[in-house]
């Protein structure tokens, strides 16, 4: 007896739980692989899954088995020329084709265990343990946006919010409550009436009195209103403040002659990381690109990364422009403002104090977070020193770090947005 069953409609993801367990167990390895991948990948190509490799010895499940060596007889098929007693050279190191196929424990030729994770998983691992600084503070404290939400039922309200079902239910309950005593009385009287009528010489007086009483009770029952003011219920709506989900990201970059394409590439990767990270948190993100040499200008992305300029460097021009744009377009109570400034550290000597004054007085009170990265393998210059003082004064909102080469990008990013740092800041 056989049954044929179509199981294709059953879920196909029976292994999902086990897969998650595996990923969880090897979290550390996967994170490392993801960090490597970020630095290896081209900048346009951050949003896809990744192949993860873990050394097999880490995922290996040990069992007791025979090791190599010893004295053994083994049988093989396909003899062509051997006769009993023939001696064969053992193949040099690495085990011949005739090996029993046991995995070596010597580490030689060990393959990595590789598998794929999806884009979402990739980003989750990428930004695991990272948090946006000051997000909570700003969004809750200064929020001006409200959303109406249902909040149960109230007894007062406008007719358009009347909840018919609730009101009728109340009315029904009230009618039952108010009428129950009278109905019981009515039943008793009716029964009494029947009994009296049944007596052979009916007691007329008694009958009349009973009938009167019944009529009275019935009248009073009818007086119970079908619906009353106190039955009415209205849907209640309350306004709740919603965290602002809008963010703007300022990318500020020095494009003076000293900034080479390589340095710009590093900056770009940093910006992309920041963008992806903000995307995880905010629904809507605007990006403003500001480039500067001696004067600053708001530009398109293309121009920002690829056009070349020469000349000196005045950083304060960019900061002034940023401040201007914030005042014009991005009300700091409505927008979460993040800024990242990349530079090779050059600045007009007299300008650095100006920069730190603009930041301290105007920008930092308005922004959520301002990160400065200096992309240079060289010694720091005046700007760094000025900013360092700032970072002490505004530890919550301002951070700076140095990137020496592409391999530093992700570590520095992690450092700037590490959860610990955020916790301290709050």
């Amino acid at each position, binding site marked *: *007896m*056989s*049954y*044929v*069953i*179509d*199981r*294709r409609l*059953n879920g*196909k*993801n*029976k*292994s999902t*739980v*086990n*897969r*998650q*367990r*595996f*990923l*969880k167990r090897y979290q550390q390895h996967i994170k490392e692989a993801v960090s490597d991948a970020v630095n290896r990948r081209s900048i346009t190509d951050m949003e896809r899954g990744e192949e993860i490799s873990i050394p097999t010895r880490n*995922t290996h*499940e*040990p*069992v*007791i*088995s*025979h*090791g*190599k*060596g*010893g*004295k*053994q*007889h*083994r*049988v*093989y*098929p*396909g*003899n*062509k020329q*051997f006769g*009993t*007693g*023939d*001696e*064969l*050279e*053992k193949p040099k190191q690495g085990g011949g*084709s*005739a090996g*029993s*196929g*046991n995995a070596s*424990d010597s580490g030689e030729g060990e393959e990595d*265990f*590789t*598998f*794929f994770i999806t884009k979402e998983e990739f980003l989750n691992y990428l930004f695991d343990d990272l948090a946006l600084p000051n997000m909570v503070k700003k969004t809750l404290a200064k929020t001006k946006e409200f959303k109406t939400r249902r909040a149960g039922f109230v007894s007062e309200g406008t007719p358009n919010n009347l909840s018919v079902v609730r009101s009728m239910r109340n009315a029904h309950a009230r009618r039952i409550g108010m009428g129950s005593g009278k109905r019981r009385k009515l039943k008793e009287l009716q029964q009494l009436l029947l009994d009296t009528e049944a007596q052979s010489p009916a007691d007329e007086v008694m009958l009349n009195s009973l009938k009167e009483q019944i009529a009275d009770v019935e009248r009073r029952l009818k007086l119970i209103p079908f619906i009353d003011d106190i039955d009415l219920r209205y849907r209640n709506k309350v306004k709740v403040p919603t965290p602002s989900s809008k963010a703007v990201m300022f990318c500020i970059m020095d494009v003076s002659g000293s900034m080479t394409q390589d340095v710009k590439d590093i900056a770009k990767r940093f910006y992309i990381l920041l963008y992806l990270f903000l995307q995880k948190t905010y629904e809507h993100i605007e990006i403003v690109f500001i480039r500067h040499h001696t004067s600053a200008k708001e530009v398109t992305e293309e121009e920002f990364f690829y056009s070349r300029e020469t000349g000196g460097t005045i950083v304060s021009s960019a900061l002034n422009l940023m401040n201007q744009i914030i005042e014009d377009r991005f009300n700091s109570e409505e927008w979460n403002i993040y800024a990242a400034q990349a530079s090779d550290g050059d600045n007009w000597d007299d300008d650095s104090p100006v920069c730190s004054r603009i930041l301290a007085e105007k920008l930092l009170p308005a922004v959520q977070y301002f990160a400065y990265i200096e992309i240079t393998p060289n010694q720091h210059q005046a700007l760094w020193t000025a900013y360092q003082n700032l970072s002490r004064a505004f530890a919550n909102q301002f951070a700076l770090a140095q990137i020496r080469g592409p391999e530093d990008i992700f570590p520095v990013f992690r450092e700037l947005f590490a959860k610990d740092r955020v916790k301290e800041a709050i």
Partner: protein
Amino acid sequence: MSNYISTDSDWTFELLEEYDREIARVAAIYKLDTYPNQIEVISAEQMMDAYSSVGMPIGYNHWSYGKQFLSTQKSYKRGQMGLAYEIVINSNPCIAYLMEENTLPMQALVIAHACYGHNSFFKNNYLFRTWTDAGSIIDYLVFAKNYVRKCEERHGQEEVERVLDACHALQNYGVDRYRRPSPISAAEERVRQQEREEIRQQQLNDLWRTIPLKKKDDAPRKRRQYPSEPQENLLYFLEKNAPLLDPWQRELIRIVRKVSQYFYPQRQTQVMNEGWATFWHYTILNHLYDEGKVNEGFMMEFLTSHTNVVFQPGFDSPYFNGINPYVLGFNMFCDIKRICENPTDEDREWFPDIAGKDWLETVHFAMKNFKDESFIQQFLSPHLMREFHLFSIYDDDEAPTYKVGAIHNENGYRKLRETLARQYDLSMREPNIQIVSVDIEGDRSMTLRHTRQNSTPLSGDTYEVLKHLHSLWGFDIHLESWENDKKISRMSCPSITLDDL
């Protein structure tokens, strides 16, 4: 009008049923006795799921199955491997998975192979009859899955994982080789599990500690040997005797042990099981062809798959990966049939009992009463050894060369057959390790004895396994390797102890 069941290569459910009916009819002619079949059509993704749960239709959750799944998925997506055409589960009813991608001839092959070949093997082979209970395995797996989940809720996933990891490392040592477990249903199992737990709780009576001990004689008492006999079922011993485990941990050990026990016969009958199933899909489909039920196109496709399965590359071929159990098993059953029907003088001399007998009875007898090792020892004929060009190699790790031992000639047949049979002997394939003593009056350390054969050492994993063993036992573990009554080496976990110095 043609008699063909189908001429198309696309399958439908009606056609599957039709083929199943026809195959069942033919199987009955050949006296194949089977459990009822439950044929389930699944997609490739579901097949990957089935793969990664190591052939259990329902498994408890564990990361290692996730690992299995990831690696299957990767190699499948890259085209490095095709998925098996079928998976069949030793249960009653016997569950067989068919992939929807298969063509109709492939589905017919799979039905004949799995639903009648493997199925009849599961039902009739003595090892399966003795060691597994097809009727209750699904229930038991459901119980196990729920139990593990409950433990995770109560004690945390990590704790459960730690115990399961340790058990998995020892699962090949969780088998009763000689004592037959009584079949038990999941409902009974659940009740008994609760009883076991309760009894353990109840028996913990603190009063006993206060009873004054009898004065002992001054004469030094003889140290009690414990366990009184060496124990080879390590997991069973741990379940019953590990001093520090909670009841739920013991239950987890029991679950792994039971599952391991369930797979124990499969590990010992690979050649026979696959050979039997292959032999029958070949015989049944040819029978259908002879009856005119299937056409040439069907047979061509079937034979292509069949020959792919029964392909044995020589030892020097780049495709060589050991002796293919399908080939060996299939050819041996064919050979038995040949010996019965057309015995040569050589066969009469070697197999006086079966030469010229009824072949059907003989193959059934062979299927029912043997495992790989004894099957080869009993039925591998000189004819087949010649056909396979078998030869044996003596590999001494201290000698500079391999030595060719027996080859397929008059002097070598017996030796060759014995050597090959031993290769399939589970007790030879797995190191022999037993618990010989537990120091119950001292530091509670456990001593295991590895009886070495042919100077083969243990693999490099061993220390890792000892660590797992230590985590279950809770006290020191020593592993001694002995060969010919000489102690060769000693390994301790967690560390070196005084005895080692």
